């Protein structure tokens, strides 16, 4: 039966520097959860608090039914995988994985059988007698995971598990970990600063910023409805426009109309993903096509108007169809975007018509 983790009102400061402030989070049994955030957002600290490697100044953490904060790290039943693996350098792969059983004085034949089973799981049966220094990064990471699993943890915590690996190994290991999780169903939290990794791997993503939880939800929901400008920008490239709203009409401060939204009049910000900008060739168009770059299947077009430059993205095929070239004039369709204004939740802007005068479909998103 998988274990639940409950974090309630947890705060932590290091010498006056607040790292976590009043964090509340429940990790459901058997869930694979990503803690996503830039460095310094407190995500690793939270992980260390759950493991008992550090103590919260305030609040409580429970693993399963019991309050973990009163328990020593060695008794919490938490498997922790460190970013730099932290394998025992003076022990072979076999002994590293056997360690949790050796210290529990498990009978030797049992240890041998269990280690061999885990070696098979991580597909390193042939490297049992190697030392950590003789392994590649990906291999070390897998040994670290096997060692954590050997202690039969109730929950698994991974600190930047793929941070020190190159792109290909990272992708393979990610798939492998997802498979492993689907088979074992052990409640798992992993920390990452890579949003692609978090979205690809996790059932649920928690975005952290400045020691607080910025937003949590399914990857697709967060991407569609980011709660604030920071998260919007953190989750991928976006064009940022300062706008004025008047009678529901959104107008860039440079003058052109972007669309409509039913929000109070005043200043606001609109964030638009590059693929929500569609340039259309027009001899009298008010946008000038700047640099065009194509990287494989994707193409990017930069467009300028009155000192404002926006980046549009589309498939390379779609670009070919438009026939746009650098120096051409074009019109720009805004097919989506998110509006943030003081005191107003994020408002999704979508489906703008080409002429830009019809009313838009707007909706309140997220919170």
């Amino acid at each position: 039966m998988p274990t639940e983790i409950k974090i309630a009102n947890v705060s932590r400061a290091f010498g006056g520097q607040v790292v976590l402030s009043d964090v509340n989070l429940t990790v459901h049994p058997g869930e694979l959860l990503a803690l996503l955030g830039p460095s310094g957002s407190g995500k690793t600290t939270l992980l260390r608090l759950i493991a008992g490697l550090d103590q919260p100044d305030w609040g409580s953490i429970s693993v399963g039914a019991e309050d973990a904060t009163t328990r020593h790290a060695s008794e919490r039943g938490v498997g922790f995988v460190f970013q730099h693996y932290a394998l025992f350098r003076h022990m072979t792969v076999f002994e590293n994985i056997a360690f949790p059983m050796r210290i529990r004085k498990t009978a030797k034949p049992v240890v041998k059988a269990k280690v061999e089973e885990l070696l098979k799981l991580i597909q390193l049966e042939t490297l049992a007698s190697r030392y950590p220094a003789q392994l590649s990064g990906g291999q070390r990471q897998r040994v670290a995971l096997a060692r954590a699993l050997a202690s039969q943890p109730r929950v698994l915590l991974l600190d930047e598990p793929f941070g020190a690996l190159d792109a290909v190994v990272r992708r393979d290991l990610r798939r492998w970990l997802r498979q492993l999780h689907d088979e074992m169903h052990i409640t798992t939290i992993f920390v990452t600063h890579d949003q692609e990794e978090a979205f690809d791997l996790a059932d649920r993503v928690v975005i952290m910023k400045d020691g607080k939880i910025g937003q949590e939800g399914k990857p697709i929901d967060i991407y569609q409805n980011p709660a604030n400008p920071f998260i919007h920008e953190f989750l991928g490239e976006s064009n940022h426009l300062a706008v004025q709203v008047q009678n529901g009409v959104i107008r860039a401060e440079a003058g052109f109309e972007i669309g409509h939204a039913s929000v109070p009049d005043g200043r606001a910000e609109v964030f638009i993903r590059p693929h929500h900008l569609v340039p259309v060739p027009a001899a009298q168009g008010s946008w000038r096509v700047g640099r065009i770059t194509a990287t494989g299947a994707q193409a990017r077009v930069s467009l300028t108007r009155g000192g404002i430059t926006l980046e549009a993205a589309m498939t390379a095929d779609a670009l070919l169809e438009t026939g746009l070239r650098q120096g051409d004039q074009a019109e720009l369709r805004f097919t989506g975007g998110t509006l943030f204004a003081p005191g107003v939740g994020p408002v999704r802007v979508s489906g703008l018509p080409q002429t830009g005068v019809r009313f838009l479909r707007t909706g309140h998103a997220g919170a």
Partner: protein
Amino acid sequence: MANRILLISAALTFVAVFLLLPLIAVFAQALSAGLGAYFAAIADPNVQSAIWMTLTIAAVAVPANLIFGICASWCIGRFDFKGRNLLITLIDLPFSISPVIAGLLEVLLFGLNGLLGGWLSAHNIQIIFALPGMIIATIFVTFPFVAREVIPLVQEQGNEEEEAAVTLGASGWQIFWRVSLPKIRWGLLYGVLLCNARAMGEFGAVSVVSGKVFGSTDTLSLAVESLYESYEIQAAFAAASLLAMLALVTLVLKAALEFSLREELAAVKRRKAN
């Protein structure tokens, strides 16, 4: 090219004159009256007693400093506390003061007219001019050797492995014996080796507190002086040759250990780099 040859031969000449020649001279003098006389000199009860004293002192001083070195490196490497820098400076103190002064300080402390002298003599405890004093002096002089080798190693390696061991369910002692100690074993051995060489070869501090009773409170290095002063040149060199051999063995072991230690540090650096 000519410059290089000149420099190299200058260095080699220096090594030959100042290091190799004295070493050869020690053995040549020791064996000048033949092998029989050499072994007779070593078998002399007074020299035997000196060897025994030297071994006893080292057998106490080295483990004492081993334990101290582990404790100090643990504190300094792991924790940031008030007085940490002071402790680092204090560890180096024996390096910066003359061993003779160290011996004198001990006399001032434990001697008959010293601070604790009255109390000690009232309880019939003799420290100065006896084995305990010589051990204390040796511990003081060899204080930094282990700690100074291990502290940088502990600082370099960090404590992630210990943290991993905790999460895997290990207790404090299990972590110490199975993780922390093996991690620093080469540095520790290296420190012990240097500490031992110094403990056995120490002259100044021990000389002040020993009272130099030949055949009773003489160590091997003190015996060399005693024999030399009584014009038993060949016997003096025979005793000295034992210390010279200790030095040679130390040198070989040191080279071997340095290799292992370098590997260890290089592994840490590689890990940090990627």
